[in-house]
């Protein structure tokens, strides 16, 4: 029986095969999933904002840049090789729109861009980006196979 490890908001967790990682209710937040397909270990982070901007206070797992550093450190600690790591991400939606008022900051888009950039900076290929739209997502990540199951309320379910 597979264990399911839940990742909260502004939180990150690692897992070994056959366990699954889960994060629920992603809106403009992003779930970053990383695994080493050879060692079958991986991790997930639920980030809320693009960058910590050098601020030292608060929870580093809240931000794309600092959360990724923490996640990679822990995955490496499990024996994964950085050169083998693969990434997928989901979330980054724009949940609300006010008629006649375009949002000043599309925070979901900015989160997605930040994650993409940070992955590039660390040299980790991004295989799947299921981002944007105006709906929430709950995701399950299988660290063994790298399969990412994305569930929504009114936009179906898929495995990528």
């Amino acid at each position, binding site marked *: 029986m597979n264990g399911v490890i839940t990742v*909260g*908001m*502004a*939180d990150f967790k690692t897992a070994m095969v056959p366990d699954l990682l889960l994060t*629920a*209710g*992603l*809106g*403009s*937040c992003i779930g970053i999933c990383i695994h080493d397909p050879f060692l079958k270990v991986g991790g997930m982070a639920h980030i*809320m*904002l*693009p960058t910590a901007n050098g601020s030292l*206070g*608060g*929870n580093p797992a*809240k931000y794309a840049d600092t959360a990724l550093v923490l996640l990679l450190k822990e995955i490496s600690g499990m024996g994964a090789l950085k050169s083998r790591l693969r990434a997928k991400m989901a979330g980054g*939606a*724009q*949940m*609300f*729109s*006010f*008629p006649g*008022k375009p*949002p000043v*900051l599309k*925070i*979901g888009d*900015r989160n997605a861009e930040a994650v993409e950039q940070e992955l590039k900076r660390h040299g980790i290929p991004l295989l799947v980006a299921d981002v944007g739209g*105006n*709906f*929430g*997502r*709950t995701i399950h990540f299988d660290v063994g196979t790298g399969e990412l199951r994305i*569930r929504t*309320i*009114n936009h179906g379910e898929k495995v990528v």
Partner: protein
Amino acid sequence: MEITQLQLDALREIGNVGSGHAATALSTLLQRRIDMSVPEVWAVPFEQVTSIVGQLDTPQAVIYVKVEGEASGKAVFFFPVESAEIVVKALFGTNEPIDLYNEMAQSALKEVGNILVSSFIMALTQFSGIPLQPSVPALAVDMIGATLDAIFLEEGVLEDTVLFIDTQLTGIPKIEGQFIFLPDDGSLKKLLGAMGV
């Protein structure tokens, strides 16, 4: 800013008056008795909002209104979908199944949100003497966690602790809703100042 016990009590009182007006408005609209809980004032990291709203991917009908004026903020009203269906059915006077993604149902829900939030804001204005106006309501029928993260993170910043006033509304039979008012940073001082605390 640091919040004193006296200020927390004042905020709870704001919640009490505002939510009381909102509950009365909902009761009039639906012709049902609506009860409200004593408002809670939370000053917690946003990550802990789960402990207040439960499972993050429970589908809820979420109505979001921006409060504009000298003490701006955000007002959010959310119903579990089952309650939202009962509310829409009551408004339409039907027992037929309701599709909450249907345009008619959505505008009815927005209108309910509008009435609730307007009465909350009116109470707030009377109470504090600060003129406030509600924006047009926006609606999402989706996972509660996803909608709240979008609302709280909209400006691209998140304080380590967020402060909000939370009230539960319940009606017989089986209507549940929750109301959150989230004052913007500077507004809190103004609201408290107007109340002399």
